[in-house]
């Protein structure tokens, strides 16, 4: 198996702060890999080391097997680190032209195509400094993808975007990974985004790897039906082994989607009042908080995660 990014006992300290504390991680080439963690967990530091922006205190990081930060490996990568900023005197098209020149990729970079693809076709000649946060994010995505790299690192790619834009960008990320074979590493605080887009996830806590695995495995597998009911004990009696309490007035039903109408009929016939029925997808939040539990303050992390 080939790896897009490998970190081995990576340590990065800033004075007394240990941003990375012996992080070891291997991110395979192909697919979308999510990186989760509260603020200060070390996600951005890992990315900055991978891109040669920051030097590790100790340990090694490799991109496609070559030491991170080397020109040969960086040529195969694109990135959007945190909220992108641009020189205010450059238009969106100028930004991409400048970056294409810097990479020596003026021939292969299809600037207009990528501006259209991220939804900035109509704003190509506007100064990037006048862009909203969402538009800056879109331009950052175009800058990350437009030289057609094999690996793209995206740090909070949809922050500041409207819901339609978020959906569009998620689809773009998935599309590039599935159809064009781009490896994408995605850091996000939006657990739902990670669950929808990523194949595998790593959870960082205090500069260390707290958990790693397939999204499905981490979230506990298949979706379950959540019913808000009254009385709950009568509902649980109907559900039997397939039921589980989820608070005083709710139950989780481990059933197939096709069984839903029959189940609801059975509950109503048993005298159970149902005020809400909703499919709950795999619960990444519980996995996330569970992974952070041993080493961090749960309330604080929950707030960060949202």
């Amino acid at each position, binding site marked *: 198996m080939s790896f897009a990014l490998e970190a081995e006992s990576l340590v990065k300290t800033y004075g007394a702060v240990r941003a990375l504390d012996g992080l070891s991680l291997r991110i395979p080439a192909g697919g979308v890999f999510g990186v989760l963690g509260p603020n200060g967990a070390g996600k951005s530091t890992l990315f900055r080391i991978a891109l*040669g922006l920051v030097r590790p205190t100790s340990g090694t990081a490799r991109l496609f097997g070559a030491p991170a930060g080397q020109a040969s490996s960086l040529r195969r990568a694109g990135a959007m680190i945190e909220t992108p900023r641009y020189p205010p005197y450059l238009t969106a098209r100028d930004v991409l032209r400048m970056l294409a020149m*810097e990479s020596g990729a003026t021939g292969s970079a299809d600037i207009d195509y990528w501006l259209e693809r991220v939804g900035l076709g109509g704003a190509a000649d506007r100064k990037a400094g006048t862009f909203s946060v969402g538009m800056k994010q879109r331009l950052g995505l175009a800058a990350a993808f437009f030289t057609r790299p094999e690996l793209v690192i995206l740090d909070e790619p949809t922050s500041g975007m409207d819901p339609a834009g978020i959906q569009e960008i998620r689809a773009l990320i998935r599309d590039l990974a599935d159809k064009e074979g781009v490896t994408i590493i995605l850091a996000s605080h939006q657990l739902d985004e990670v669950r929808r887009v990523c194949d595998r996830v790593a959870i960082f806590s205090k500069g260390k790897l707290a958990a790693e695995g397939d999204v499905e495995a981490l979230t506990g597998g298949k979706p379950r039906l959540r019913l808000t009911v009254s009385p709950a004990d009568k509902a649980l009696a109907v559900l039997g082994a397939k039921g589980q309490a989820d608070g005083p007035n709710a139950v989780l039903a481990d059933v197939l989607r096709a069984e839903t109408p029959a189940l609801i009929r059975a509950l109503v016939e048993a005298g159970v009042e149902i005020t809400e029925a909703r499919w709950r997808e795999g619960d990444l939040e519980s996995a996330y908080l569970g992974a952070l539990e041993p080493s961090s303050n749960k309330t604080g992390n929950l707030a960060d995660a949202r």
Partner: protein
Amino acid sequence: MLADAIAAERFRLSRDRTALFWGFAFAPLIAMLFSMGIDIFTRAVLHRTIPGETTDLANRAMGAVAGASGPFTALFLLIGAAAIFAGDYRWETWRLITPRNSRTNLLAAKLIVFAEVAAWSLLFTAFTAVLAGLFSSLVNQTRLVAPPGGSAFLGHFAGVFLITWLEVMLVGALAGLVGVVTRSTMGAVIAGLVVVFVQSTLAATMQATTWKSLAIPAYAGRILKAFVAAPDEMRPEAGPAGLALLLLLAWLAVLAAGAVTLFRRQDLTKE
């Protein structure tokens, strides 16, 4: 590659009209307008003409170029240099750029582009001095004359131009080093200006030509300009002039290498 970094930097500066105007065009323009203003004031308000029967445009151009390494021009050059060298800290754009080329190339490209635009700025200085001279000749009704020495003047002009350009490159390299250290455009301008002012003041107080006085770039520049353009009786010896050139080059190398070395080792945590 370095050529890619230079092309990108050149493209970028071509779009930064504010830096181009204030950094590299404003000082020559204001000097020209000031000269014209004096001519108009003398003629229209004082009803007099500036003394002299001739105007030597070539010498005016050389004089303007020779003076372009002074503190007044340095202030504006520092603004331009700070925009080039420290702009990526100010706009937090290093994270966009550094993964695309080597850090040595990126900073070397900035130095080379600064060198190019500084040379254009000096040529513009000469051009605006010629325009101001033509205007003065018209207002004061003086005769235009060729410089004494004829074709030898071209050699003098080229020498003065290159020495001033070298001095201006020192200002640029200083802004580069201070910009990297302070990560700030304002820091580059202010610290650079203090250094330029202090060394110009020191150079003005120096009486004897020693290796210590020659180590002050402004003094070394003055000796070199005198060596290439002054009349024979005022021309300094070749030895001190050669040492002055070596010291100016050494300053440039130290400042540029310092900026590149620090930038290569620098953690870009925010930028």
